[in-house]
């Protein structure tokens, strides 16, 4: 039996004029961010958890991409 969601989404997708800019906006600015979690311990006693997000690109590269997006 075909997947109902598959039919609906595929049909709508064909009729959608999705711009490149919107696609880039989605993949760059939104989506699930993996957060690491570290534990700060003193004398083997866990004191505090800190969560941190993972940034993959360099700041310079990110700025370059942003400049490109703004000029498109």
């Amino acid at each position, binding site marked *: 039996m075909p997947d109902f*969601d598959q039919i609906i989404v595929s049909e709508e*997708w064909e009729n959608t004029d999705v711009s490149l800019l919107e*696609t880039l906006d989605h993949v760059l*600015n*939104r989506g*699930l*961010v*993996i957060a690491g*979690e570290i534990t700060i311990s003193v004398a083997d006693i866990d004191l505090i958890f800190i969560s941190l997000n993972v940034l993959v690109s360099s700041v310079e590269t990110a700025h370059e991409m942003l400049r490109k997006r703004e000029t498109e």
Partner: protein
Amino acid sequence: MKLYAYCLYADLDAFDNSVPGVSKAAVRVLKIEDISVVVSDCEAVPVTQENMLAHATVVRAVFTRTTPVPFRFGTLATEQQLRSFITTNKRALANKLAHLRGCVEMDLKTTWQSSNSFTTKPNSAAGPGTAFLLEKRRELVGNDQALAERDELSTFLRTALGSLIKDEKIGLPTSEKPTITKVYHLVESAKIKEYRARVEDLRAQRPELQLEVSGPWPPYSFANIELEFGSQFGVS
């Protein structure tokens, strides 16, 4: 070897993984707990337009079969880090997958002239120093007018679109004229046509409002989870 992560999903046995991934790497599925994670073996991912589109294409390949939770572009991790992330956030991810199941994201860009603002105009009598500080405050937390307009627009759309919207994310209105606000709606895939038709009705009712719909998208705007630490201890 690190893994580049595209998205995760729960309720699908297989998908077309012949789609090339970032840097043309092969795409495979890594099963962790009850969750499938779509990954490529990769040490580094250059930030290029080609790779961003490859990310979007892989997520869309899954999206044609089920509702994925997309990762943001550039997510590289070791298998151990991925397993740790999913194990640590298992409950939040399960809740997120259940919330998104069978849904798509529809984006609605609303534009209106400030003269037709939803609410009052800003205080134009403020001096340059006050205006500067007000603008800084608006950038950080949004000014009262922006917040009020956002809330009023949200109420207006929720009233008009009603049960078609399962969830909503809404940005702050821009300070420039015309005012633009981006709204993201989570909509059941079976209701996409009805959603579009209802937006058409809104255009006729409020001609001063420019409404542009795009989608359906994988639910990028609804993908992030509340960290277990936050949900357990009330700290974000």
